[in-house]
């Protein structure tokens, strides 16, 4: 923390009493490249879905290169139980007048949910059943979310920053650290140290 701000500053009587604020829980999916499926990125708290979209851009949108973000209130998703055996599902033909449901599937237990497509049917039961039938083969879980409850970043919105962001990436950092470590290991000193270390401790 800044030393400047430690001078004569105190939190006493500064904060108002807590209020019963309403905070929503939003599920976030990111799309790495145009045309690629949206993949589960994480979740966040926000006062509403507009603010959640902005937070998602600054949070999950900066984890790695990303062109689009989807999100929805977690109460809007409907899922099958996680199952290692084939999920039971019966297809229903799409109805152009019915709501559209985004379909996400999980391949193995613990995997992230990945967008597979959509179904257009009357209700959540029919949506899950149709989604299982069309996309649920060899999947451990299927999730459907009504598209009209989902928010999306605008087309062509800048999410991932366009100037050099390599320093933000863990892989960039680890590459640099590995290079330094490799250089260090090549020196004789480290081999001598290792010999001494083994001799003294084992």
């Amino acid at each position, binding site marked *: *923390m800044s030393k*400047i701000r430690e001078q004569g500053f105190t939190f006493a009587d*500064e904060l*108002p009493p807590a209020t019963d604020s309403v905070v929503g829980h939003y599920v976030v999916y990111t799309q790495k490249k145009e045309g690629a499926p949206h993949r589960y990125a994480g979740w966040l708290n926000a006062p509403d879905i*507009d603010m959640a979209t902005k937070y998602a*851009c*600054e949070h999950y949108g900066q984890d790695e290169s990303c062109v689009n973000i989807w999100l929805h209130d977690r109460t809007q998703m409907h899922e099958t139980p996680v199952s290692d055996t084939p999920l039971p599902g019966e297809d229903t033909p799409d109805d152009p007048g019915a709501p559209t449901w985004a379909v996400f599937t999980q391949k193995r237990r613990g995997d992230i949910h990945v967008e597979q497509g959509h179904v257009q049917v009357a209700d959540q039961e029919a949506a899950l059943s149709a989604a299982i039938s069309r996309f649920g083969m060899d999947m451990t879980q299927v999730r459907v979310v009504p598209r009209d409850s989902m928010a999306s970043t605008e087309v062509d919105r800048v999410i991932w920053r366009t*100037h050099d962001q390599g320093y933000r990436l863990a892989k960039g950092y680890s590459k640099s650290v590995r290079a330094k470590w490799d250089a260090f290991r090549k020196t004789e000193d480290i081999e001598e140290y290792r010999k001494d270390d083994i001799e003294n401790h084992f």
Partner: protein
Amino acid sequence: MTNPMNNLLNAPEAILVLKMADDKLFLGHMQSDWTGLGPILEEDIASSSMAQDDLSHALVLYEYLGNRFGLDPDVIAYEREPGQYLCCDLVTVPDEFNWATSLVRRWLFTHYAAPVLDQLALFEDKELVERARKLRAEEALHVEYLDDWMRRLGSGSDEARDRIQKAIDLLSTHAGMLFELPGRDLEPDDSFCCSRSELFKEWDTNTSSVLEQAGLMMQVELPDLKTIGGRNGVHADHFAAAHAEMGTVRSADPGAAW
């Protein structure tokens, strides 16, 4: 023998870039103090991300100046005398960990930075134009984000509106000096003064529009050309404190590679 730093500080176009880089360096440094202390987790992450933007925008501009004048960007950022920094007072006004103050400080600045980056993108130097365009697209995110918060807090509870209005009252006294012209010791140059009043007008129109939607009030006048401040190296005490702290690590071992 020519001194590259003196060359930079005496090139009219270069100091227009330098004042933006210095503003962003100090604003990013000040806002970074909030990392880990934001009012809610996501706001902490978002404001830290945007503070990092400001620091990396400063780097993008220092790199440009470094390439042009044969200087290490870190040397430009950290190894000048206090009087050679051209940032305005606003960016180093302490917020005393008052979130409203930190928010308004960024909001006033981002509405200034956006049109200035537009101007830099009109220069003839292709390298500068390319860099300014990238930064401008990202500055638009800051504008959108901070405008949204100003509207939300202005139209929120009485307490929220009161807090944000007090922050505006505190910082608006510094806002006019965003438009101070740098380089008074240089030969007169058209690029220095031709757009000062237009720039202020654009800033005033854009900030007033948000304030009206938010139900907030602000009065800022363009200071006369004789008023001298940070853009000419005449800094307030809070700049000296921020400058000393920011250079602590660098000055601990001058010349070391980090």
